[in-house]
C-alpha cells in the first residue's frame, strides 16, 4: 500500500505522433469501359490517353486526397478544367517523383499508404500532356471523390482549441511553432482516435502532437506559452512514473484522422498538456493559424503497450562547411522480441541519405527504411503494412549522410558554415524513432519496456558519459526492474556530476529504501528537502518512511509542511490522514481522507481507509462504496478485496463477498487467513462442506492456529461429524490449553 515516488525523467525529442489510419472518403474510382475505344477498326494505333478514361481515375486515386478544395494541396485537381490548367506541371512533378510526396525507396520496407506511382502511371500522364490533354468522353469519367473538411468520425468527445491563433507572415522562411493545449478534464481518458483541423491546412506542412505529462513545457514558458513557442524540437519532463512515449501522433494533410490499432489507445490524465508542433510554410498571404484537436475516447485502457525508441547521433553532428558527405550512425541491440510498427527518420535541411536497417541474430540484414533524397518538407512517419518482427538480439542501425555544400539547395546557410546539432532550422538533427511492441513476453518476467529502456539508456550513457539524463533514466529503469543496488550506483554517478540535484537525491533515497536501507534513504531525502521548499516528492517519501517506522507525529508534521508547499497533493493529504490515524485521532483523519478525495476522487489510500472506518463504525453499505472504488484502482490488492468482502458480508451480500474472497485467494493462494475468512462466509451461506474444505486449507498453511481448529470443530459438529469435531477441539486445547471456547464446545458435543 505504500508507493514510493520515484522519478523517471525521459527526454522526448521532436516526437509525435500516432497511428495513421487514413480514412478513405473517396469512392473507389473505376475505369469504366470506353465503348468508343473498340468501335474503331484497324489500324490498332496506340489508344489515346484521355482525362475521362485514364487520367481522372489516376488523379482521384493518387492526388485528390490533397488536391481538393480545402485540402492540403495548393489547388484542386478534381475537374478536367483544373487538371488542364496544371497539366504540364503534373507531367513534370510526377516524372521527377516530387508528387505524390513519398520519400522511401521501394524495396526497403513495405509501408502502409505507399504513394509511389508506377512507371506506367507516370508515362500515362506524360502521354496525356504530350497529346494536348484531351478530355475524351466526359460521360465515362468516374464521379469525383467527395471530401468534407469536418470531423471524419462524427463529433469528437473532446475538442481542444488553440487559444491565441498565430499570425503567419505572408513571406519569409518556414516557421516551426509549438502550441500548448492543456487537457481540461478531471478524469483520465483513453484516446482511440485523434483528428487535427488546422484553420489553414494549406500552410501546415505537417504537425506533431506530444503529450507533456507534467506540463513542463508550459511551466518553462510561463509568460508566453499561450502565444506559442518557436522551435523544431522540444524536451519534455516525463515526470514521476515510467510511462514511455508510445505513439506517433504525426499529422500530414491527407491523413485527417489518426486511429489507433485495437488495444492500443493512448492516455490523457488530468494535468497533462498536448503540444501541437506545426511546420508552417508561408503561402504569400498573411494567415491566421488556429487549430482544433478532436479526441475520440474509448472506455477500454490499453491492453498492448508499445514504446518509442530512438537512435540518434546528435553529438556526432559537427559538419564542416562544404562537406558533401558527412556521416553519422548509431545502433542499438534489442534485449527482447518486438514487433516494429512504425519508423520516423528525422533530419533538417542538410540531410541527404537516411537509412535504417536491422541485423538479425542469424546475421541477415533486414532493411527498415532507405530515403535516398531526404527533404524535410516531405517528412513523415512510416508504418509497416505488417509489423516487422525483430527477435531479441537484433541490432538496429541508423546511418545518415549530410551535404553541407552549396550544391545542396536546401542548405539554409549561404555560404555554408560549420553546423552542429540544435533546435533551430539552421542546426541539424540525426534521429531515427521506432515504435515497437514487445512480444513473446513470458509470464512473470519483468516489464519488457523497462528492459528496452535499460538497453537504450545504457547504450546512450556509454556512448556519451556526460549524458546525465541517460544515466538517470538508466538508474530509474534499473530501479523499476527491482535492481536497487545497481540503480543506486548510477544515481550516485549522476550526483557526482551534479551533487545538488534534488530529483536524483530523492530517487536515490527511494532506491535505498527499496533495497532495505532506510537510514541511508532518510539521509538522501533529508538532503533533497534541504535544497528547497519545492521538493515535495522527497518530503512525501520521508514522511512515508516515518509512517513505516510508526513515527506518526513526525510524519504528520512532514505531511503538513509538504502541503504548505504543494497544497493540491492528494497523496500527502491522505498520508496525513494515515499519520493522524496512527496518533489515534480518527475524526481528524477522516476529514483529511475526505479532503484527499476532493482533490483526487481515485486516491487509493483515502478510499481504503474511509472504507475501513465505515466498516468499524457499522456502515457496511458506505464501506462497500469506498472499497469498490479502491479495489478498482488496485485490482491486485488482496487486502482491499478482503475488506470489501467483509463489507459485503456485513451488508448481507454473501454472494459478492464470496466472489471477492475467491478472487483474493487466487491472488494469494497461500494466505491462511483468506481461506479461513472464505470458510466463515461459506458457512454463513450454509455451504458447510466447502467451508470445511477451506478451513482445512487454512490449517494446512497455519497448523498451530488454535482458533482455526476450534472453528473447524464447530463446522464438523454442525454436519454431525462428532468424532472429527472432538478431535479438532482437542487439537485446539493441545495448542492452547486455556482455550475457553474450545473447552466449552467440547463439553457441548453429544456423548457417545
Amino acid at each position, binding site marked *: 500500500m505504500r508507493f514510493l515516488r520515484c522519478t523517471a525523467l525521459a527526454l522526448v525529442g521532436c516526437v509525435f505522433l500516432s497511428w495513421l489510419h487514413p480514412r478513405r472518403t473517396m469512392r473507389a474510382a473505376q475505369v469504366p469501359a470506353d465503348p468508343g475505344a473498340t468501335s474503331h477498326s484497324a489500324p490498332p494505333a496506340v489508344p489515346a490517353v484521355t482525362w475521362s478514361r485514364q487520367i481522372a481515375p489516376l488523379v482521384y486515386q493518387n492526388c485528390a486526397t490533397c488536391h481538393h478544395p480545402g485540402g492540403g494541396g*495548393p*489547388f484542386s485537381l478534381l475537374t*478536367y*478544367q483544373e487538371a*488542364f*490548367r*496544371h*497539366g*504540364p*506541371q503534373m507531367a*513534370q*512533378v510526377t516524372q*521527377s517523383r*516530387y*508528387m505524390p510526396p513519398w520519400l522511401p525507396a521501394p524495396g526497403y520496407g513495405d509501408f502502409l499508404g505507399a504513394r509511389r506511382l508506377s512507371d506506367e502511371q507516370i508515362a500515362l500522364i506524360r502521354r496525356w500532356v504530350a497529346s494536348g490533354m484531351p*478530355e475524351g468522353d466526359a460521360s465515362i469519367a468516374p464521379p469525383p471523390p467527395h471530401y468534407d473538411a469536418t470531423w471524419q468520425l462524427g463529433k469528437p468527445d473532446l475538442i481542444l482549441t488553440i487559444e491565441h491563433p498565430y499570425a503567419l*507572415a*505572408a*513571406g*519569409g*522562411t*518556414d516557421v516551426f511553432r509549438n502550441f500548448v493545449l492543456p487537457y481540461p478534464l478531471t478524469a483520465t481518458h483513453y484516446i482511440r482516435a485523434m483528428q487535427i483541423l488546422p484553420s489553414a491546412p*494549406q500552410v501546415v506542412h505537417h504537425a506533431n502532437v506530444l503529450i507533456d505529462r507534467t506540463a513542463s513545457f508550459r511551466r518553462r514558458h510561463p509568460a508566453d506559452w499561450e502565444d506559442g513557442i518557436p522551435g523544431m524540437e522540444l524536451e519534455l519532463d516525463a515526470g514521476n512514473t515510467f510511462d514511455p512515449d508510445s505513439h506517433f501522433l504525426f499529422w500530414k494533410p491527407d491523413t485527417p484522422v489518426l486511429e489507433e490499432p485495437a488495444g492500443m489507445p493512448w492516455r490523457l490524465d488530468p494535468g497533462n498538456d498536448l503540444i501541437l508542433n506545426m511546420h508552417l510554410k*508561408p*503561402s*504569400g*498571404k*498573411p494567415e491566421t493559424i488556429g487549430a482544433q484537436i478532436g479526441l475520440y475516447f474509448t472506455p477500454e485502457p490499453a491492453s498492448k503497450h508499445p514504446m518509442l525508441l530512438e537512435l540518434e547521433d546528435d553529438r556526432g553532428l559537427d559538419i564542416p562547411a562544404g562537406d558533401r558527405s558527412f556521416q553519422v550512425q548509431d545502433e542499438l541491440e534489442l534485449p527482447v522480441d518486438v514487433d516494429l510498427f512504425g519508423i520516423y527518420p528525422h533530419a533538417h*535541411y542538410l540531410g541527404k541519405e537516411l537509412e535504417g536497417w536491422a541485423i538479425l541474430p542469424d546475421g541477415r540484414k533486414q532493411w527498415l527504411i532507405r530515403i535516398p533524397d531526404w*527533404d524535410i*518538407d516531405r517528412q513523415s512517419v512510416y508504418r509497416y503494412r505488417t509489423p516487422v518482427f525483430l527477435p531479441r538480439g537484433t541490432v538496429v542501425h541508423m546511418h545518415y549522410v549530410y551535404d553541407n555544400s552549396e550544391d545542396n*539547395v*536546401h*542548405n*539554409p546557410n*549561404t555560404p555554408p558554415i560549420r553546423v552542429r546539432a540544435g533546435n533551430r*532550422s539552421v542546426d541539424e538533427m540525426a534521429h531515427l524513432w521506432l515504435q515497437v511492441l514487445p512480444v513473446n513476453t513470458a509470464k512473470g518476467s519483468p516489464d519488457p519496456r523497462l528492459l528496452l529502456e535499460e538497453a537504450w539508456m545504457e547504450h546512450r550513457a556509454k556512448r556519451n558519459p556526460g549524458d546525465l539524463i541517460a544515466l538517470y533514466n538508466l538508474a530509474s529503469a534499473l530501479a523499476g526492474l527491482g535492481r536497487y543496488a545497481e540503480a543506486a550506483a548510477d544515481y550516485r554517478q549522476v550526483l557526482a556530476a551534479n551533487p545538488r540535484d534534488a530529483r536524483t537525491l530523492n530517487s536515490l533515497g527511494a532506491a535505498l529504501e527499496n533495497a532495505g536501507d532506510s537510514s541511508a534513504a532518510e539521509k538522501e531525502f533529508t538532503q533533497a528537502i534541504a535544497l528547497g521548499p519545492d521538493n515535495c516528492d522527497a518530503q512525501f517519501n520521508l514522511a512515508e518512511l516515518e509512517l513505516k517506522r510508526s513515527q506518526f507525529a513526525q510524519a504528520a508534521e512532514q505531511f503538513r509542511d509538504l502541503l504548505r508547499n504543494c497544497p493540491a497533493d492528494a497523496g500527502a493529504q491522505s498520508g496525513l490522514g494515515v499519520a493522524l490515524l496512527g496518533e489515534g485521532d480518527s475524526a481528524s483523519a477522516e476529514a483529511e481522507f475526505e479532503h484527499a478525495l476532493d482533490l483526487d476522487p481515485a486516491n487509493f489510500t483515502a478510499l481504503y481507509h474511509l472504507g475501513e472506518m465505515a466498516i468499524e463504525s457499522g456502515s457496511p453499505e458506505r464501506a462497500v462504496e469506498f472499497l469498490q472504488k479502491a479495489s478498482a484502482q488496485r485490482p491486485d490488492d488482496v487486502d482491499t478485496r478482503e475488506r470489501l468482502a467483509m463489507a459485503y458480508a456485513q451488508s448481507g451480500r454473501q454472494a459478492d463477498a464470496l466472489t471477492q474472497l475467491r478472487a483474493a485467494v487466487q491472488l494469494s493462494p497461500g494466505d491462511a487467513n483468506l481461506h479461513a475468512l472464505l470458510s466463515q462466509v461459506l458457512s454463513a451461506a450454509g455451504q458447510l462442506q466447502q467451508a470445511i474444505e477451506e478451513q482445512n486449507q487454512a490449517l494446512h498453511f497455519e497448523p498451530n492456529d488454535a482458533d482455526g481448529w476450534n472453528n473447524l470443530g464447530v463446522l464438523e459438529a454442525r454436519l454431525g461429524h462428532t468424532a472429527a469435531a472432538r478431535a479438532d477441539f482437542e487439537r485446539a486445547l493441545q495448542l492452547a490449553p486455556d482455550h475457553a471456547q474450545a473447552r466449552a464446545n467440547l463439553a457441548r458435543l453429544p456423548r457417545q
Partner: protein
Amino acid sequence: MAWRATVFLLGCLSMVARAAEPFGTDLNGRPIEQIAPAGAKAVVLFFATSDCPISNRYIPEIERLDREFAPQGVHFWWVYPDPGDTAAVVRRHDEDFQIHADQVLDTEQRLTRMAHATTTPEAAVFLSTAAGLHEVYRGRIDDRYLALGQERPAATRHDLELAIRAALDHRPAVKPGGPAVGCSIVPRNAP
C-alpha cells in the same frame, strides 16, 4: 559613351511597337491601352496565376520590389494570363492576399506573347524609351526555386532586382541564373 554601349546591347533584344489592340483589361473590364505611364523609366510585368502556389509565395517579394522601385520610376503590372483568372477570381485573390497593384487580365495573352513569358511566376522588365518598350530581362524572380520540389530556404540571388537596377543604371541587363519555376502558362487555345 556608356549610353551608346547600352543602346547597342539593347538592340539585341526585341523592340516592341505600340500595340494596335489593347494589352488586356483591368478588373472592371476596361481595356488597357498603355502600360508605360508618362515619365516611367521602366515597366515590370509580373506574370501570376491565382492558384499557383509558387506564384503566390512571390507576392511579398514583388510587393517589396514595387515599394522600393516605384519612386524611381518603375511601374509594376501584375499580369494574369490564365483565362480562368477572371475579374471575379482575381478580385477575390486580391482580397485574400491583400494585393494593391495595377493588374491586367491578359485574357488574349498579348502581354504574355510580347514578353515571351511561359511560366507563372515570371517577370519581364522593359525599358521605356521614346522609341517604345525594350525588353531587357525576362525570367525568374530569384533562385529560391531551382526546380519543382527543389527549394532553398531563402533566395541567394535576386535576379529580377539585379535586372531592374541594371536597367535603371543603363547597365547591360543580367541574364537569369536559371529557369523560371512554377506553373506553365497554358497557351490561349484552352478549353
